[in-house]
């Protein structure tokens, strides 16, 4: 094992040592930053549902953070509509009850904003206090025009945001009704972006006459969600949307394909062929052309990158498939940081191990400790969302893949390759400065 003589080495595990159930070793007791909560994830997502408002019911801690997160996003290329409403859950409300305040706020929101749907988002505290929130909502339903949908986000019951996000998807299910099946139509489930209909997948499907009815949860209306079960196929792009797809299948018979985002050209080819197969369309020619272009780019990238080492963290889609892509480039993945290994990661893991690629897999519970690990391993490149300044000081090139997150298919891999090959001047400037500072500290 790497680093066996160091303190941090004792917390490391090789991928080949990962237990069957995918459980990762906890690496710290004092955590930073820790996994993000479902309240935040849901508050960040519901602005994507058109004709809706989301009433966030929580303590000032959660409300202030939710608002700021939206404000920060408003300064980016992917701003979201301002549909968040807030009601503060105070100490008095805990003692004397929150029902009346919530009731008044719902009536006011209904009257002032006229939403088609009003989402009601609870936080940890209501769940702990145990006030019967749902019955309060049931009482008020007949008095409001908006459809009221409750999303519980009791983050203290889990280590991550997944249950809350799944609850959000399940709330969409409540809007759905049985529909006649419409051939050559699909929903994309689990894609969070305004550019979903411009993705390579969307373009290819459209070129074969496939109509994308909804991108859930991206800019669809409650009325559109109601009709969503009528499609020929749900294409499920991430694990959070899978429970919704299963419910739609069970209740309405809507078929689905679970197809998390791949990176390796062969994986993308298979991904496309599986989707095409379920839709009875032929994408062979298009796939071949796109794959050839990506393979050419990959060959050029290999010349520049072969022999380098890297660390991988916070990647959308199939992380271990990205590791396979890196391996094809001749880049050794020394460590993969992640919080959760999914059951469907197993085949990619097996493929890595078969190829003799056995990186450290590390649960990044404390960012400072992650940086200690990076300092020990000294990878040339870090892919993901690690602190750019800290990496630059260690002379590790940070590569942020956020622009690839909203791409699907070969275009996503092309973007990853472009990011690996291009070192922006601003990054050079950061590394230049940090190196001067690091030298000064010696």
């Amino acid at each position, binding site marked *: 094992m790497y680093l066996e003589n160091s303190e941090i080495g004792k917390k490391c595990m090789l991928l080949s040592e990962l237990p069957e159930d995918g459980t990762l070793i906890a690496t710290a*007791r004092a*955590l*930073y930053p820790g996994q993000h909560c479902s309240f935040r994830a849901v508050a960040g997502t519901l602005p994507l549902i058109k004709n809706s408002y989301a*009433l966030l019911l929580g303590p000032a*801690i959660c409300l202030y953070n939710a608002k700021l997160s939206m404000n920060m996003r408003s300064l980016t290329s992917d701003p979201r509509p301002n549909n968040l409403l807030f*009601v503060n859950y105070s100490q008095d409300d805990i003692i004397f009850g929150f029902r009346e305040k919530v009731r008044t706020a719902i009536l006011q929101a209904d009257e002032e904003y006229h939403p088609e749907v009003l989402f009601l988002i609870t936080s940890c505290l209501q769940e*702990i206090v145990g006030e019967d929130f749902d019955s309060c909502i049931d009482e008020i339903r007949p008095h409001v025009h908006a459809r009221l949908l409750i999303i519980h986000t009791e983050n203290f019951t889990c*280590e991550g945001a997944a249950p809350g996000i799944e609850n959000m998807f399940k709330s969409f299910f409540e809007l759905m009704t049985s529909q006649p099946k419409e051939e050559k139509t699909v929903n994309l489930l689990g894609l969070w972006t305004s550019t979903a209909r411009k993705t390579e997948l969307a373009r290819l499907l459209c070129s074969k006459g496939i109509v994308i009815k909804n991108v859930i949860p991206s800019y669809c209306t409650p009325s559109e969600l109601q009709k969503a079960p009528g499609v020929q196929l749900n294409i499920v792009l991430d694990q959070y949307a899978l429970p919704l797809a299963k419910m739609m299948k069970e209740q309405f018979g809507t078929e689905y394909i679970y197809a998390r985002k791949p990176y390796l050209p062969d994986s993308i080819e298979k991904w496309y062929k599986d989707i095409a197969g379920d839709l009875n369309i032929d994408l062979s020619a298009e796939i071949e052309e796109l794959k050839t272009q990506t393979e050419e780019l990959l060959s050029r990238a290999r010349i520049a990158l072969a022999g380098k080492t890297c660390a991988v963290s916070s990647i959308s889609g199939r992380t271990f498939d990205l590791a396979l892509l890196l391996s094809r480039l001749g880049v050794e993945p020394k460590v993969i940081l992640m919080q959760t290994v999914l059951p469907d990661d197993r085949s990619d893991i097996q493929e890595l191990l078969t190829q003799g690629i056995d990186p450290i897999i590390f649960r990044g519970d404390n960012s400072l400790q992650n940086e200690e690990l990076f300092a020990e391993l000294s990878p040339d490149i870090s892919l993901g969302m690690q602190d750019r300044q800290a990496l630059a000081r260690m002379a590790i090139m940070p590569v942020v893949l956020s622009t690839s997150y909203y791409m699907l298919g070969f275009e996503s891999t092309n973007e990853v390759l472009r990011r690996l090959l291009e070192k922006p001047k601003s990054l050079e400037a950061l590394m230049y400065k940090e190196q001067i500072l690091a030298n000064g500290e010696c």
Partner: protein
Amino acid sequence: MDLKHNGFPVPSDYFGVLWALSGIKDLLILEHGSTGTCNYNAFNYMIMNRQSPKGKLFSSGMDEDDVVMGRDEKVKEAIAELDGKYRPEVIALVATGVTSVIGLDLQGIIEEIQSATKSKLLSFSSGGFSGDYNQGIKEVFRSLVNNIVEEPRDIKPYTVNIIGPTIDSFNNVSDLAELERMLMLLGAQVNTVFTCKTNVRDIKNLAMASLNLVTRDTGLEAAKMLKERYGIPYYYGLPFGVRGSVEWMNDVAGMLGLSLSRKILAEEIGKYGYSILELVNFLQNLDHLRVVISCPLDYSIGLKRLMQDEWGIDPSLVVLPELDSASLEEAIAGINPHIIFGNSYDLMIAKNVPIKVHAAFPAFDHIYRYDGTPFVGLRGHAHLTQTIINHLNQNPEVFRN
């Protein structure tokens, strides 16, 4: 009105606690709660000059079993890890909403494990239910004075503490640089800035300073405690404008037994004291301008005085942060101001006001890391006067209506 939309939910005392502790080196913060709040903080510290709580803030990662069973093993293990690995002088144990609601006794935990812990442990148990962020800042100031400040071995002459600025304080980099510069002109120096630029040792030695300069109302209580216990006098107020800055320097010099050199003062005024009348032409009248100030108390008082004394403008409205956004929106619609000074949300609300000057926290869309944009002191006067003239010239319609 409980329902909010366009404004922002006022940060609770929990945030004040974090912000007041975050500027102290050798101190780590462990919040007892689920990781969601800690993760959120990693994000929201960015609105304060792109700061990060990495290496400062940690979470115990409370889970359902801890809540249901009232278990405290996780927090004890996390304290032991921080104590052993990073050896901070102080570990501050901070409650979140969940801890507060389940009634976990943080002080009881400290009493149980302090003897086995090298770091000094402090608890902050309000968890977001004791008012706004100012209450949290005050709670930290009180705790530090009660638990960290030591009896002074001696008094350092001509040395001051600046009490009040915390990492959330608007424009604190530039304002502190200017205050320190003006103190140097007097021959005085700063002992420490309590708490945005300090460390545990300097807090222990807080009572060795000759004078406390309180820059923010939230610092007054701590200054009074230090006066009562150690006899340290304090001076409260920020220097705004030429007149305000000269008075501040004279007052501070007097309290320290120093005097302000006329030669130095003349040089300073020559360099930074330009009147607005030197910068406008004869057809640019200012006295009709309607101005709204929406800032915390000390900035509001200072800016109002600067406008009245230096620019000859009587502000139409001065708003403190307690006013909700809907009322502010209504007031702006009624006044139809030419100029507004306020925080990021105020400026969003005031979308039709031609001249918007960012002058308060929250500042999610502004950065103030460079130390050359003060609002206070003589250079602050110069900077603000130049800024307002440039805004006026870019919006000449304000001279016509």
